[in-house]
């Protein structure tokens, strides 16, 4: 079972400039897929992991900091 809180804290401390405005899928402190639309990112994530994918929308402007 993935620790979502820990994953979210980890991603909040990453430089996500290249993903601005995109969806990213995070698993075990790695970005395993990214893209403009959620269904594409979810599909790519499911091809790589058996666990429930965790998708985050990276804001177009600014950066996340939990």
């Amino acid at each position, binding site marked *: 079972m993935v620790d979502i809180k820990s994953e979210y804290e980890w991603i909040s401390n990453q430089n996500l400039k290249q993903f601005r405005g995109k969806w990213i899928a995070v698993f075990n402190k790695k970005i395993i897929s990214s893209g403009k*639309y*959620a269904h*594409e990112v979810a*599909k790519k994530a499911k091809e790589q992991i058996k666990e*429930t994918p965790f*998708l985050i929308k990276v804001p*177009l*402007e600014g950066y*996340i*900091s939990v």
Partner: protein
Amino acid sequence: MAYKYNISYNFTRYVVKGKIILRPIIPVELKYKDNDPIIYTMLLDSGADLTLLSKDVGDSLGIDTDKKADDNVYGVTGHTPVIDEKVKIKFGMGSRNIFEKEIPVQITKIQGRPAIPALGRETIFREFDVHFRMGQPKDKQKFVLSKV
């Protein structure tokens, strides 16, 4: 008032042009019928009547987003057609304080709108008293969902 339990979250801090914006964002598991669930970060949106998902989020859950719209939602930028559906949501803290329920949602017919899935007042604000503690010192700035 005694609550059954409290779920406390830190605000997600967005730094925009040097200013810090606090947003109440929650990781929520969504599941449609017997399809595989997906966890999304969702904005707890006290200004939204219902939970609102974009077409691409709806597609990812296996919802038929190409069917005829059931309704329209009206916002500050105009209106958009939506499909009415129900999905199971699940979120919480630890293994005991987990909230799980099927809730009504609306799915737009536009990819990427809304930009982030919005968790509206129905059903969440009937199930929880929601406290936005933005006026506290930084280490105590939290939003808390207290189960009624």
